[in-house]
């Protein structure tokens, strides 16, 4: 859990659980996630598909449909205000104005039959009560800010008339239109080419720094997370298994899964002879969570305690914690000398 160090967190989540009731049983997509997001900071959430990172974001946004979804938590606090128990009408006022979200595929995330201008001004009119004219002016300003040339002329265009990178810029403009205090980017650059990804990351960094927006950056790509985030939470099978400041976490990975991820990831600056160290096997079923560490069947570093009791959260350094019984420091030192 990323604890606040003195500063008041802008978003605080405690023990979030999200379950989906399906034909086959209850899928425990998120199983007790807690974190604090500090103002102006970027928190990365990394994990593979099915680890529950997107569902965590949707749960905070109150976008999980119930049924089949079911979201419970001890607390979800946005800028000191409890948003856990609020009704749909108040949740709607928060969405898009105080927490905004950017999704993976900009082509699918924009409505193909509405103009960019329409989609951009919607939230402005809804949340800020701007007139059509004022909303239009603000939309032009926003498009300009996200680097779309000739913004004024492009308001009447449709999403398919934009390239992939441009579409994602539009999505970012929509998300930031009401100056939210939290921006959630869910695999926002995954569908883009690397050169475009670099543009978008650069843009998000610049804009959120200017606006003081706190960001949750969800990604499966450790490299992207290393470049953009202040702190990182690693998710596996619906739980945060390790979290800490980004440098600390990458220099001292303290969970078998984090270590496994780093070992599996090929690097541009690799030794040519380095053989990847994959994680064997497949992720576990989320249908019947086991009480023990869910990573145990795939873990190379399991110790006796792992087979006896569920892993407890323990600190390995200042605000750097892990849910792992094994002490991995020696191993990590040895392999990365």
């Amino acid at each position: 859990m990323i604890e606040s160090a003195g500063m008041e967190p802008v978003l605080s989540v405690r023990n979030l659980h999200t379950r989906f009731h399906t034909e086959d049983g209850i899928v425990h997509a998120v199983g007790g996630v807690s974190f604090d997001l500090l103002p102006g900071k970027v928190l990365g959430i990394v994990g593979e598909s099915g680890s529950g990172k997107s569902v965590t974001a949707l749960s905070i946004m109150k976008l999980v449909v119930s049924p089949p979804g079911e979201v419970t938590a001890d607390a979800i606090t946005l800028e000191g205000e409890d948003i856990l128990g609020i009704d749909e009408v108040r949740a709607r006022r928060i969405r898009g104005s105080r927490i905004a979200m950017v999704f993976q595929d900009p082509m699918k995330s924009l409505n193909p039959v509405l103009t960019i201008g329409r989609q951009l001004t919607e939230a402005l009119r809804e949340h800020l009560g701007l007139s059509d004219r004022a909303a239009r002016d603000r939309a032009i300003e926003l498009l300009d800010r996200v680097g779309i040339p000739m913004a004024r002329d492009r308001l009447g265009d449709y999403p398919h008339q934009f390239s992939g990178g441009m579409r994602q810029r539009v999505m970012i403009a929509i998300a930031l239109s009401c100056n939210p205090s939290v921006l959630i980017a869910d695999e926002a650059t995954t569908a883009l080419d690397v050169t475009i990804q670099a543009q978008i990351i650069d843009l998000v960094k610049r804009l959120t720094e200017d606006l003081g927006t706190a960001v949750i950056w969800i990604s499966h790509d450790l490299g992207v997370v290393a470049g953009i985030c202040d702190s990182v939470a690693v998710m596996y099978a619906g739980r945060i298994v390790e979290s800490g400041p980004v440098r600390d976490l990458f220099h001292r990975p303290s969970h078998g899964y984090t270590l496994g991820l780093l070992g599996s990831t090929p690097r541009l600056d690799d030794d040519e002879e380095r053989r990847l160290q994959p994680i064997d096997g497949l992720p576990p079923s989320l249908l019947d969570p086991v009480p023990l560490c869910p990573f145990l069947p795939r873990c190379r570093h399991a110790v006796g305690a792992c087979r006896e009791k569920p892993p407890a959260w323990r600190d390995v350094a200042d605000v750097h914690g892990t849910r792992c019984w094994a002490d991995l420091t020696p191993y990590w030192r040895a392999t990365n000398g």
Partner: protein
Amino acid sequence: MNTLAYLARRIVQIPVVLIVTTLTIFIVVRATPGDPVELMLGMQTSPDAVQAVREKFHLDKPLYQQYLIWLGDVIRGDLGSSIRLNRPVSQMLGERLIVSLQLATAAMLFALLISIPLGIVAAIWRNTWVDYGATGYMVLGFSIPNFALALILIYVFAVELDWFPISGIGSSTSRGGGVWAFVSPFILPAVALGTVQTAYFGRLLRSSMIDVLGQDYIRTAHAKGLKPAVVIAVHALKNAMIPFVTMVAIHFGYMIGIQITIEYIFAIPGMGLAVLTAVVNRDFPVVQGFTLVIAIFFLVTNIIADVLYTFLDPRIRY
């Protein structure tokens, strides 16, 4: 501009399709046994009289010449005249087409009135009793032949309750005018005719709506904090309507042909009955003229469907 070019191209294609269509009909009609003149004049007529009629309708010439003569006349705007009734085909067509279009429009209005709300609520409250009720209605609507429904409607609403007249379409003047006098004879036929379409359209709208509601941009719209009604009415419906409107236009083109049983029951002087009579009597000019118009009508509604598609979906530009 490109849409216009596409439209022009589609319109240019119409005559080609029509020539294939009319030629097929021409050959089929002439190749089947039965002589119109004998049917009309009976056996006792003198060979000279028969010959005279034959010559008048060019039936003495080879088939290909008959077709070319007919085609030439059509291009000049002359559809010929009925062998049986000795009336210009175009005149008959005018009367019949108006009646058929009126009935088709009434049935279509009924179908839209029922199917649009039905499809939308079924999609929004998917897998609830609302949905089960709506889909149940749709399955029943699919399964009942329109003439059977017409009989039930007649029994309940005309025979037992006496709310609506059984016939009267096409003879509006006889009742002394008034809006109700004009509208009331259409109600039962329109309901009988439109019920299958309510089921068909409702099902289509439900499935396209469900498809759209599962799209990422709907999630985006919710993430913007828009009101659910706005998300449905603006973001979902506009997309779901694209296949729907296209299908409605195509069905309107077919409507005229499905009417035949309904015309038969309610004694409506429409296109279907006219074709039926003409076919039985081997009244070549009438069959030829009516099929031409029906084919044109179908092709035009198809083009309208395509144009609507481009109009509704900005991604498509031909």
